[in-house]
């Protein structure tokens, strides 16, 4: 049955750490590489017993048929994924899913990436730059070692600011401090894209709301199928239920109910903890290797 194409499908072509627990993967997925636009995501299942996890596509190369994912090891699946390397195969990669980012000529845009959110913001920032916008990027991380894609972001930005919570690198503070400073300095800002942890996105929304600056966030609710079939990813936007997988993942930050999102994302916390404990007990090795024999 197997043809060369099938042997290649979902093979990891490249894998390297960008920061502790943050790993870049290039994965062979020609159909997805051809179609994908900035802001879209894939659902990945790492092996036959794996869960389906949504991961935003950071980049793609239609010529060699690969997509790039940047993964932060947080839960069992992402840690297990980050233990995989070149020539391992993922069981499933499906996409591109969700609506592409809205890319127009807005004028001056501020792109904010918090932690690994920078990886998700990067492709859209690049597209916004190509569309003729003046791009101001603010990337933030807890500490120096977690700052990722700084040089990539610098290349596509007119201005780049880096913040670290602990001040171990660049400016000490939060991304919102920098944003507020820009707004306070009277800089004309037409559009803000913020991607990162929920508290950060919520803070950005509150910072821009009084100034009426259009602000968009990319949401990361719990998903199963990613095609609108289960409704698990529904988020409250303007008091209405929307499915992040097909209506999003990007929404107007001023209309999102972040409180509901935070609570819903904690829904499986006990199960996640249990899975993590089991994974750490076994060192996660055997299971990871079984991915090779597809």
């Amino acid at each position, binding site marked *: 049955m197997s043809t060369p194409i099938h042997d290649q499908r979902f093979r990891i072509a490249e894998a390297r750490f960008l920061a502790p627990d943050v790993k870049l993967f290039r994965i062979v997925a020609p159909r997805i590489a051809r179609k994908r636009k900035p802001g879209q995501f894939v659902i990945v*299942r790492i092996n036959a017993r794996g869960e389906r996890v949504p991961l935003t596509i950071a980049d793609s190369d239609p010529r060699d048929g690969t997509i790039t994912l940047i993964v932060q090891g947080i839960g069992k699946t992402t840690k297990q994924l980050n233990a995989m390397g070149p020539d391992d195969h993922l069981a*499933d990669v499906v996409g*591109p899913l969700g609506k592409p980012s809205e890319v127009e000529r807005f004028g001056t845009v501020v792109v904010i990436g918090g932690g690994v959110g920078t990886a998700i913001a990067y492709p859209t920032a690049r597209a916004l730059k190509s569309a003729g916008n003046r791009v101001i990027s603010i990337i933030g991380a807890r500490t120096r070692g977690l700052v990722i894609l700084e040089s990539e972001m610098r290349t596509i930005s007119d201005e780049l600011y880096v913040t670290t919570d602990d001040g171990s690198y660049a400016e000490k503070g939060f991304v919102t401090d920098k944003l507020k400073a820009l707004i306070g300095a009277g800089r004309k800002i037409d559009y803000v894209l913020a991607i990162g942890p929920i508290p950060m996105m919520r803070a950005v929304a509150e910072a821009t709301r009084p100034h009426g600056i259009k602000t968009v966030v990319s949401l990361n609710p719990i998903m199963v199928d990613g095609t609108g079939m289960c409704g*698990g990813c529904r988020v409250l936007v303007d008091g209405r239920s929307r499915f992040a997988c097909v209506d999003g993942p990007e929404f107007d930050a001023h209309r999102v109910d972040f409180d509901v999102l935070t609570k819903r994302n904690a829904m499986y916390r006990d199960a996640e903890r249990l899975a993590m404990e089991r994974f750490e007990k076994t060192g996660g090795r055997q299971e990871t290797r079984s991915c090779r024999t597809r």
Partner: protein
Amino acid sequence: MPNPLTPKERTRIPRQKMPEQEPLERRGNFAEVNLGFDFELAKQEAMRCLECANPKCVAGCPVGVKVKEFVALILDGKYLEAAAKVREDDVLPAITGRVCPQEDQCEGACVLSKKFSSVAIGYLERFVADYERQTGQVGLPPNAPPTGKRVAIVGSGPAGLSCAGDLVQQGHQVTVLEALHEIGGVLIYGIPEFRLPKEIVRQEVDNLRRMGVEFETDVVVGQTVTVDELLNEEGYDAVLIATGAGLPHFLNIPGEHLCGVCSANEFLTRVNLMKAYQFPEYDEPVFDCRDKDVAVVGGGNTAMDAIRSSVRLGARNAYLIYRRSEKEMPARIEEVKHAKEEGVQFMTLTNPVEFLGDEKGWLRAARCQKMELGLPDESGRRRPVPVPGSEFELPLHMVIIAVGTSGNPLVQSTTPDLRTNKRGYIEAADDTLKTSKRGVFAAGDIVTGGATVILAMGAGRKAARAIDAYLRSGQW
């Protein structure tokens, strides 16, 4: 061997009972409830057939299975021939024998059903299909010489599979594209293991593979590739859209965003497709039902499947909330019976109006109102109307919404010249299932809205005939 009994003697034999797992035992496992007929039961049941000159059962079957002939073959002990006879019209007999609403179809039409009880056609169909599977001697029909024509089928549920089976027999090259990571559509993600073991679905899919059907998982048509790209860049000669009715309806009442409220699609997908009942052996979790109060809202097979799954996951109280009376329930009679035996508490003529949460955003109760039946609505069923002042609170940890689905718009929204009706379903000609777009056909729930496995299979067959005619003539 002709049936030795006179018609009168046949009517005296009672309908044979399906051996089942005991309710108390099966509440604790996901193994199949019905255990299947043995040879003796099958023979006894087959003896009951009156062999009508004009068998109503065949007309009652959406795919026209030759019931009278296959039942006679059972009487002769020719089980493989009987299975092959079913397979002539039904490519998934082990599945339809389990999940068809026989009481509304073949068995409902059986002449015995009026004065006695109908021949257990579904149980017999399952018997021969299982026999065939277990002997490993599946009588696959031969394929016609290759035509060189290629067909893409979008969706691997019952409509797609039955169409694929017919087209490959007619000599066409068939590729089935599936969005999820397993083949089978609703048979895999929707119907639970205890009603339809997934191994059976896998074997039926393997049979199709052996017949030459190719499958590709992880392809979301509309996103990964469009219908136009299939027809142009990928060079398919025809496309069948059989994407089903996969979009869940919610109630649109306050509190539906609370943790612990989910669609039946989500709950069942986690349990069935993702095997969450085996968490943490499998990674995908599901709401921990142990010692919790769980309710499902709805009265169809999906509602029964969901609430019976929660029982197996350890629910302390399992309620079925339905706004009409039991008589109007669309679920199969057997599912209702099984649910009751397993301790599901039926709250009919009841409707939730609001879900109430705690400070952490978790469901704590449903506010419900009692209903009474008014005049019939467009579905012919009596319309439920609220009883004033009847509201009450039902404490709950989880509620599963199973009030129907609609078509997934991903294909339609990316295929501009594909006409849809106002409910979002694809318009297709009744007789040929041709859509408004040349070379594109549509079948199953994406045309009709949520229906049954067998109706979708019947539509898949009808589409196969029309696709074959189109590919041979080139005439649209």
